[in-house]
C-alpha cells in the first residue's frame, strides 16, 4: 500500500518533467480536437499521430498516446450533446438524453455534468489501476504459455462476441485479423508465409496502415457525399456550464453506478467501449423511478454512460500494461506503439520500466485536470469546430494519413496496404461487419500462435494441457461459458422475435 503510494509519487515526478508534461498536454489537446471533429474517434486520432512517436523517447510517446485517447473521448461527448452527432459510437447513447437537454437550453449543464462525471470516473479508474496492477502482475508471473494462450483466447472471444453487431460476425472478423497477423516471417522456422512473393511483406502487415485503412479511408469511402451537412446555432457561455446543486445531486448516484460499470467492463479483456456505455444507460433506465422520462433529457442518462466510458478507459490499461493483452482496438494500437519502441508490455513492465508505468498513471491524473481546465475556455472553439464541413475535413485527413503512413518506414509501399484495407474495410462494413476486432486479431495473432505452439511443444502435443493447469482451465471455462451464453441469448432473442416481431429498434441512435 505505502509502496504503491511511493511509486505513484515517483510517477508524478516523471510526469511533471518538462518534455513529458508538454507531450501529455499536446496529446490531450489534439485528442480533444480530433474527438470533436465529426466522424473521428480515438482510433483515427491515435493512428494518425502514431508515426510521430517513432522518433520520441518511449515515456513521452506513451503519455501522448494515452492523452489522445481520453482527450478524444471527452471531445466525442461534446458533439453528442450539442448536435446529436455521435462522432464516436460509444457516445451514441449520450445523444439520447444529452441532445434533448441542449434543446431545452441546458446543453451547458449537460457538458458540465459530463466533465465532472468524467473526472470522477477517471480518478476512480486510476485508483483501481494503482492498486490492482501490482496484484495482477504477481499472478501473471506464474503464467506459462498455456495460461497466456487461454487468457488471449478469452480476450479474443470476449472482444468478438461482446462488441457491436452480431457475435458471429465479430468472431469472423477476429479470425480474419488473426490471418492478417500471420503474414510475414514465421518466428519459429523463419520461413515467409502469405507474403505472395512481396519482400516488403516479410515484416508483416503494418499496424498503422491497417488501422488507417480500416478506420480512416474506409470511413471516408462510406461517408463521402453521405454525411449530412449540419448547422450549429448553439451559443455557449462558461457560466452555463456550472450545474446547480440539485442537478449535481441528481447526477451523483448515476455517476457512481456508471463508474462501477465501466470499471468492471474495463477489467474484462475484450469488451468494447460501446457495449459499456449501452449497459450503463440500460442499467440507469431499469432502476430509475421514472424510466419513461429517459430520452427527454434526464441528467442520469448523460452522467452514467459518460462516467462508465471514462472509468473503462483507465481500467483498460491494466490488462494491456500488466499482462500485455489489449482489451480493445484502441489498446491494441497503444500496445503496438510500445512494441515499436522495443518495450514488451507484460508482468515485467512495472519492474523493468517503472518510469513508463507510474509515469503513465500519474499523467492520467494530470491529463484529466488539463482536460477540465482546457475545456472551460475552449468550449466556444469546439462548438465552431463542429461546424467544419466534412467536405473540407476528409481531404485534409487524407493528406495526414498519407504522410503519416509514409513516415512509418519512409516508404510508399505501406500506402498500398492502406488502399487495400480501405477497400476491404468498406466491403466488410457494407456487409454489416464491425471492423474493430480485426485490429485486435492482428496484434494478438503472433502472440497467440507463439504461445499455442510453445504450450503444445512442452506438453508433447497433448491438447489437454490447457485444462490441466488450474489458471488456464479457469480462462477456458469462462470462454466456454461466454460462448454458450451468447448462443443462448441469440437463440432466446430469436424465439422472442418470433412471438412479437418488431421490438423497438435501438437504432434511433444511428442518425
Amino acid at each position, binding site marked *: 500500500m505505502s509502496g504503491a503510494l511511493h511509486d505513484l509519487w515517483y510517477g508524478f515526478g516523471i510526469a511533471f518533467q518538462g518534455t513529458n508534461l508538454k507531450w501529455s498536454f499536446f496529446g490531450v489537446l489534439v485528442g480533444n480536437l480530433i474527438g470533436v471533429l465529426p466522424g473521428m474517434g480515438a482510433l483515427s486520432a491515435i493512428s494518425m499521430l502514431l508515426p510521430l512517436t517513432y522518433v520520441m523517447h518511449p515515456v513521452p510517446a506513451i503519455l501522448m498516446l494515452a492523452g489522445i485517447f481520453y482527450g478524444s473521448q471527452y471531445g466525442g461527448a461534446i458533439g453528442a450533446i450539442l448536435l446529436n452527432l455521435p462522432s464516436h459510437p460509444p457516445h451514441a447513447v449520450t445523444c439520447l438524453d444529452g441532445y434533448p437537454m441542449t434543446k431545452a437550453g441546458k446543453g451547458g449543464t449537460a457538458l458540465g455534468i459530463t466533465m465532472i462525471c468524467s473526472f470522477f470516473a477517471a480518478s476512480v479508474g486510476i485508483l483501481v489501476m494503482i492498486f490492482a496492477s501490482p496484484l495482477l502482475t504477481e499472478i501473471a508471473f506464474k503464467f506459462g504459455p498455456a495460461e497466456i494462450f487461454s487468457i488471449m483466447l478469452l480476450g479474443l472471444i470476449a472482444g468478438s462476441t461482446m462488441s457491436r453487431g452480431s457475435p458471429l460476425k465479430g468472431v469472423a472478423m477476429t*479470425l480474419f485479423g488473426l*490471418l492478417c497477423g500471420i503474414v510475414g516471417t514465421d518466428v519459429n522456422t523463419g520461413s515467409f508465409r502469405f507474403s505472395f512473393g512481396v519482400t516488403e511483406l516479410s515484416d508483416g502487415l503494418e499496424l498503422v496502415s491497417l488501422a488507417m485503412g480500416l478506420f480512416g479511408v474506409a470511413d471516408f469511402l*462510406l461517408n463521402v457525399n453521405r454525411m449530412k451537412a449540419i448547422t450549429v446555432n448553439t451559443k455557449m457561455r462558461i457560466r452555463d456550464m456550472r450545474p446547480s446543486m440539485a442537478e449535481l445531486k441528481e447526477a451523483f448516484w448515476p455517476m457512481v453506478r456508471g463508474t462501477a460499470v465501466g470499471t468492471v467492463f474495463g477489467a474484462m479483456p475484450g469488451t468494447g467501449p460501446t457495449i459499456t456505455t449501452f449497459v450503463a444507460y440500460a442499467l440507469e433506465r431499469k432502476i430509475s423511478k421514472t424510466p419513461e422520462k429517459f430520452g427527454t433529457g434526464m441528467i442520469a442518462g448523460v452522467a452514467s454512460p459518460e462516467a462508465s466510458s471514462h472509468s473503462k478507459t483507465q481500467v483498460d490499461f491494466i490488462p494491456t500494461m500488466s499482462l500485455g493483452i489489449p482489451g480493445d482496438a484502441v489498446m491494441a494500437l497503444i500496445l503496438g506503439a510500445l512494441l515499436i519502441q522495443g518495450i514488451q508490455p507484460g508482468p515485467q513492465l512495472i519492474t523493468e520500466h517503472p518510469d513508463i508505468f507510474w509515469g503513465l498513471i500519474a499523467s492520467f491524473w494530470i491529463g484529466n485536470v488539463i482536460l477540465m481546465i482546457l475545456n472551460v475556455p475552449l468550449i466556444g472553439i469546439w462548438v465552431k469546430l463542429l461546424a467544419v464541413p466534412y467536405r*473540407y475535413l476528409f481531404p485534409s485527413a487524407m493528406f495526414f494519413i498519407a504522410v503519416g503512413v509514409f513516415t512509418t518506414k519512409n516508404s*510508399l509501399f505501406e500506402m498500398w496496404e492502406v488502399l487495400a484495407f480501405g477497400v476491404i474495410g*468498406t466491403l466488410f462494413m457494407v456487409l454489416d461487419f464491425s471492423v474493430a476486432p480485426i485490429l485486435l486479431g492482428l496484434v494478438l495473432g503472433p502472440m497467440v500462435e507463439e504461445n499455442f505452439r510453445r504450450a503444445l511443444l512442452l506438453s508433447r502435443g497433448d491438447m489437454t494441457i490447457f485444462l490441466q493447469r488450474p489458471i488456464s482451465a479457469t480462462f477456458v471455462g469462462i470462454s466456454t461459458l461466454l460462448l454458450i451464453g451468447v448462443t443462448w441469448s441469440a437463440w432466446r432473442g430469436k424465439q422472442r422475435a418470433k412471438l412479437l416481431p418488431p421490438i423497438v429498434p435501438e437504432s434511433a441512435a444511428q442518425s
Partner: protein
Amino acid sequence: MNKFHIKKDYYGGALMILIGLSAVFASIQYKLGTLSHMGPGFFPCAVGSLLALTGLLIAISAGEEKPNPGPSLGHPTGMPDIRGGVCIILSILAFIGCGRYLGLLPATFAVVFISALGDRQNTVKQALVISAIMMVIAAGVFWYALQLQMPLFKWDF
C-alpha cells in the same frame, strides 16, 4: 430493407468461407507438422478452417428473422457514393505515383485535390484552396520541422 439484410448475410458468409478456404489452401503448401512440432502452416490452416466454419454459420443463420442486434454498428452500411469512392481511391494512387517520381509537394497536392473533388459540393476553387493550405503544412510542419524523408520536388524517372 429486411430482404437486403438477409442477402447481405449470405454474401458476408460466402466471403468468409472464401477467405477461410483460400487461407487453408495457401497454408497446406507450407509444412503443417504435428501438434507437438507445428510447422509454419499449422496455425493458419486452423484459423482458416474456423473462419470458413464461421462463414457457413453466418450464411445459415441469414435466412432466419434476425432480432435487433443490440447497439448500432455506428457506421453507415449503405453502398459508397461512386464519384466519392473513385476519387478517394484515385487520390491514394496519385499520392503513391507523385511521391515516387515528383516529390512531396506534388504528392500533397494530388492527394488533397483529387479527394476534395470527390465531394459533390466542393468547387474546383475550394479544392484548390484546401490543397494549397495542406501544401503549406506539408512543407512547414512535415518537411521543415519534422524532417520528413521526402524531397519537396524531384524529377526521378
